[in-house]
């Protein structure tokens, strides 16, 4: 009975799927989808090697500090990193005094932290303290769009984890701006980069609302002993910084991971030896009696006697 229903149900489902398959194949042959301009011209991110790569990766603090500098001097005009607190910068090697000065300096923070005027109760601002988070450049999304031709500059706190390719993607994007190739316009004449957008093959839609933020060498002046502030170097440094903002606990994670995995490997090894030890008897004897069982002891002594073995 069940079998009848089962064959029927199976036949119906298979039939419906074959009809769908036929339609799919027919459509693919009759009106094949054309490759889109994005499909043809989008490029995978370039390779980027960072100190934090790999299972034993550690942050390069000097690079992170340079990246912070690039962020505050260039990116912070439009992008917030509102999940990062000023006190987190201690991980970059700054001390309490430096962080306090940095937070409250008003040098970079055009918008101070929102607060309430204690005398009148009106909305106002106050100087940031280390306990505060980085303030966003715009009070809300609408203001952000209004200032950027309806484009919303994303918050960069998690950008390295929120994009396929991570830091390699942000790095490629920053150095990847170029003129739209003539070849593209030949094949896709309607795909000219619109006014107000910029062509960047590393961006999924190819045309990005962000103008190239890093344009000239020395745009940010790195201090003594630092590498030259080329566009490439600045892009690498800010990308490394963004890996830190996305994953400040990376070094803890790697360190703990080594300890835990080594412990587990050793414990598994001991467990395996114990398993082998316990099963050694099971695979030999039919009845799972141990070596101290009188029958088995008697057997062993007889066998030893027969074989002439002492002891």
């Amino acid at each position, binding site marked *: 009975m069940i079998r009848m229903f089962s064959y029927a149900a199976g036949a119906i489902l298979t039939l419906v799927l074959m009809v769908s398959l036929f339609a*799919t194949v027919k459509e693919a042959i009759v009106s094949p989808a054309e490759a889109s301009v994005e499909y043809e011209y989008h490029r995978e991110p370039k390779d980027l090697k960072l100190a934090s790569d790999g299972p034993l990766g550690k942050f390069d603090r000097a690079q992170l500090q340079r990246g912070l500098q690039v962020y505050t001097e260039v990116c912070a005009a439009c992008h917030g990193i509102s999940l990062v607190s000023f006190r987190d910068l201690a991980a970059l090697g700054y001390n309490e005094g430096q962080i306090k000065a940095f937070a409250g300096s008003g040098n970079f923070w055009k918008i101070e932290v929102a607060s309430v005027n204690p005398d009148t109760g009106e909305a106002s601002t106050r100087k940031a303290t280390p306990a505060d988070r980085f303030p966003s450049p715009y009070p809300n999304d609408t203001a952000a769009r209004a200032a950027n031709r309806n484009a919303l500059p994303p918050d960069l706190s998690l950008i390295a984890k*929120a994009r396929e390719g991570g830091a390699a993607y942000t790095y490629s994007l920053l150095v990847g701006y170029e003129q739209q190739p003539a070849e593209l316009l030949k094949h896709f004449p309607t795909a000219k980069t619109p006014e107000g957008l910029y062509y960047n093959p590393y961006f999924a839609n190819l045309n990005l609302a962000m103008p190239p933020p890093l344009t000239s060498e020395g745009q940010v002046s790195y201090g003594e002993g630092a590498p030259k502030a080329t566009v490439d170097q600045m892009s690498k440094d800010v990308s490394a910084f963004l890996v830190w903002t996305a994953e400040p606990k990376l070094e803890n994670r790697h360190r703990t991971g080594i300890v835990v995995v080594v412990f587990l490997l050793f414990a598994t090894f001991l467990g395996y030896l114990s398993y082998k030890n316990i099963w050694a008897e099971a695979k030999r004897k039919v009845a799972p009696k141990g070596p101290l069982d009188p029958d088995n002891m008697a057997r062993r002594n007889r066998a030893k006697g027969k074989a002439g073995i002492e002891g």
Partner: protein
Amino acid sequence: MSFSWAKPYEPKSNLSKWIDDRLPLPRLVYGAIGGGYPVPRNLNYFWNFGVLAGIFLMVQIVTGIALAMHYYSSIDGAFNSVEHIMRNVNAGWMLRYAHANGASFFFIVVYIHIFRSLFYGSYKAPRELIWMLGLVIYLLMMATAFMGYVLPWGQMSYWGAQVITGFFSAFPLVGEPIRIWLLGGYTPDQAALTRFFSLHYLMPFVIAGVVMLHIWSLHIPGSNNPTGVDVKSEKDTLPFHPFYTAKDGWFVGAVLTAYCLMLFFAPNALGHPDNYIPANPLSTPAHIVPEWYFLPFYAILKAFTIDFILPAKLWGVLAMFGSILLLFLLPWLDNSPVRSGNYRPVFKRFFVILVIDVLVLGWAGGATVTPTVVAISQIATAYYFAHFLIILPLIAKHEDTLPLPSSISASALHGELQESAPIGTSKTAIAAAE
């Protein structure tokens, strides 16, 4: 216990006797996982995955309770609370990654456990109820995992919720009202988030209860084994403790090592970057995909593209639910008396095709939609249903099975019998002892 030679519980100390006289918990444990539970001696490592599933359930419950101390389920604050856990809570990053990757490993382990049952016929009589309880656990796991993924309120959380609750609107008449009732609104919003948090906290304990029923019903017939032949005598079994506690113990260590390698060194490998973007109801991600463990079902859902009596969307939803619900009928669809695939060569070949088919469905569910991918998923879906609804019943009726061993010990001992007999015992005496 069901086996007459199972050792009865004997309290080792005065304390254990005192407790046992008042609450028979020590004897329950002894009879369930101690020296008093005989288990076939020939189990292979595919039998380790049940215990592993239990371990990962406990991992999820413990890490989940810790996370719930810091998470808050408001649509404005949920995403930030998860980042608060990652950045500010002591060892919060470890708890979060443990919970996210624990879910993945829970599913990996359960899938291997299910496929073990499919191959060795563990769903057949007298274990049908164990099988069905297992499917109930699986359905509860899927619901729990879906709701858990919504909680961080990222882009994938929101849009995944939108898509999955959208399934219900495929049903005519009652569909849309049910969807609105489930969400408490017209779209995933505050009401949906808080109720998903409440239910996500509840379900693992319901799962734990069903797991106990699952294990209890297992202990009536005892475990199946790779030959599928029933246990006949004491020679066929070994006490669970210490033999299988040792075997389970070391293998748990190995799997935990793999789990920790993923947790500490590739914690986002199985996740989707879009879920690190806060949910935006006004912006749909380029590719909405569920977590990897749902991908085969997602492929089945998307395979139906033509309206044929019923709308394509309804076919997809029915097929998706049907693909799991038909498994409840498996003991009757495949009622061959031979349990293990080792002795069913035709079944074995089709089983291999099934495994490949499910992997293909998984790939297709996550791949970018192109006509090739759709066509492949249509073929793979057709095979999936044909396998269970047409092929298995036909095989069960018409196959030639290989001869079964006379007993577990006969198949498992490879002649150790004569090796362990006293020197000088004659061949016939050895054979008679077998």
